[in-house]
């Protein structure tokens, strides 16, 4: 399974402009410096709403991991898509799909780095690879 199509809305426009250019954005609090997900509107640490986008280094560790099995058809083995949660080194979590990874080797604790996939008709989406 490759990634599906996501359309932008007003809130996510800057984020998807960045992914199209190969950059993964997070939010940085201008009051306390806490780094959170790009979608965050209020700092979870200090409740400030003075947040600005910042670039993530795009590296992190797997903190949750599962393998989505497709239905077996005509005796062929089911597809196995590795998905999970990455904790970026800056702290935020991101739900994601892993690419170029052996489903049997995928596990919590593995170091991963961001890549991007852009399906026809949709925005570029961050995925992660070893």
């Amino acid at each position: 399974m490759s990634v599906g199509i996501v359309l932008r809305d007003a809130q996510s426009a800057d984020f998807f402009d960045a992914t199209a250019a190969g950059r993964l954005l997070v939010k940085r609090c201008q009051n306390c410096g806490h780094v959170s997900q790009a979608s965050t509107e209020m700092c979870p640490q200090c409740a400030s709403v003075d947040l600005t986008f910042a670039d993530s280094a795009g590296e992190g560790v797997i903190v949750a991991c599962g393998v989505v099995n497709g239905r077996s058809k005509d005796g062929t083995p089911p597809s196995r898509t590795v998905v999970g949660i990455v904790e970026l080194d800056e702290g935020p979590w991101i739900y994601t799909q892993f690419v170029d990874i052996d489903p049997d080797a995928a596990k919590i604790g593995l170091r991963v780095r961001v890549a991007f996939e852009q399906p026809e008709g949709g925005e570029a989406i961050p995925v992660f690879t070893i």
Partner: protein
Amino acid sequence: MSVPGTVPGRQPVIAGLGITDMSKRVYGKSASQFAADAVRLAAADAGLAVSEIGGLLTNAGISRALGMSLATDLQMRDLRMLSEIQSYGASAGAMIQYASMAVAAGMVDSVACVFGDAPLEPNLGAGSGAYGGAGRQSVGYSGIQSASGIGSAPTGYALAASRHMDRFGTTTEQFGAVAVSSREWAMKNPLAQMRDPLTLADHQASRMITEPFHLFDCCLVSNGAIAVIVTSADRAQSLRQPPVHVLGWGQTHPGYPLERGSEFGIVSGAAISGPEAMKMAGISLSDVDVAEIYDCFTFTTIISLEDYGFCEKGEGGAFVASGAIGPGGDCPTNTGGGQLSSYYMWGMTPLSEAVIQARGQGGERQVPKHDVVLVSGNGGILQHHSTLILSPHDHS
């Protein structure tokens, strides 16, 4: 101890229970039609006419095809309370709590609380249609998760379970022990859909859904409805059924931060709603005779049992593998077979079985000592929790 603020004689009780037939897959009715049937059954069970019911709370399943118009379908007039409630799998517990408060305050004499859903169609698998996440729009930030392949409940819970396995060493065989215990109970329950024997080997051989979950880690999907009538202890004296007292309750919506330090998959909201409900009821965990735990997945039972304190945190896997939750075990849990083996009616599955057990009407599966029954609801991906403490006695 009574619910704070209770008008004398108005301690809340559950006086009626209506369950549409779900012993096999049932087609041909809408969620609203099932719900109307369930309210009529609950009223008849209580010995009330539907026209005597003073309030209605509805909870729609994932197909969202049930709402306030049910009052019109049932020709209910001059209701003192009418609302749609939504906390996903915690909704049944939440409805009982809101109804109990309204009854205790004297706002309404009796309230019907109903869940109904009809996601199944003939020749369509349970993983298709509404429960498969099909057709969900992928727009904006929230669309990234589903577009990445994390759209379904099994996948969301598989990720949570992977964290529990990594942190505590919980195993798929321990998940399987939950499925086996649930089936052993279901085999004693004429209302249950799945009554064939199930072994750990069957569990391990069942196909993978989202690893680490096998098919038998996942709940059923059912068409049908369940309704419950909440009224006052005084009113219940003239009704048909032995009242089941609502002694305590709690809710928690953890709001896990999606960042370093999150306890997602490690600690559930039951860690808060459980102690608060027991405190309100004036009991401790050792007083609980029967546990009815929301079991959308085998893992959900394990993390919930830990957070209520039936075992230490991280030892839920070993606890269920010991046979403690099955028939004859020290901690009878999901005594009707739960959502894994009986029927999938969100929080109404554990609640309905709790009412049956508290009344002592469980037949072959009745737990001999049933003075205190704990009911656990859980919704979203561990995002919403409710707890009820029920008893056939007005004081614990």
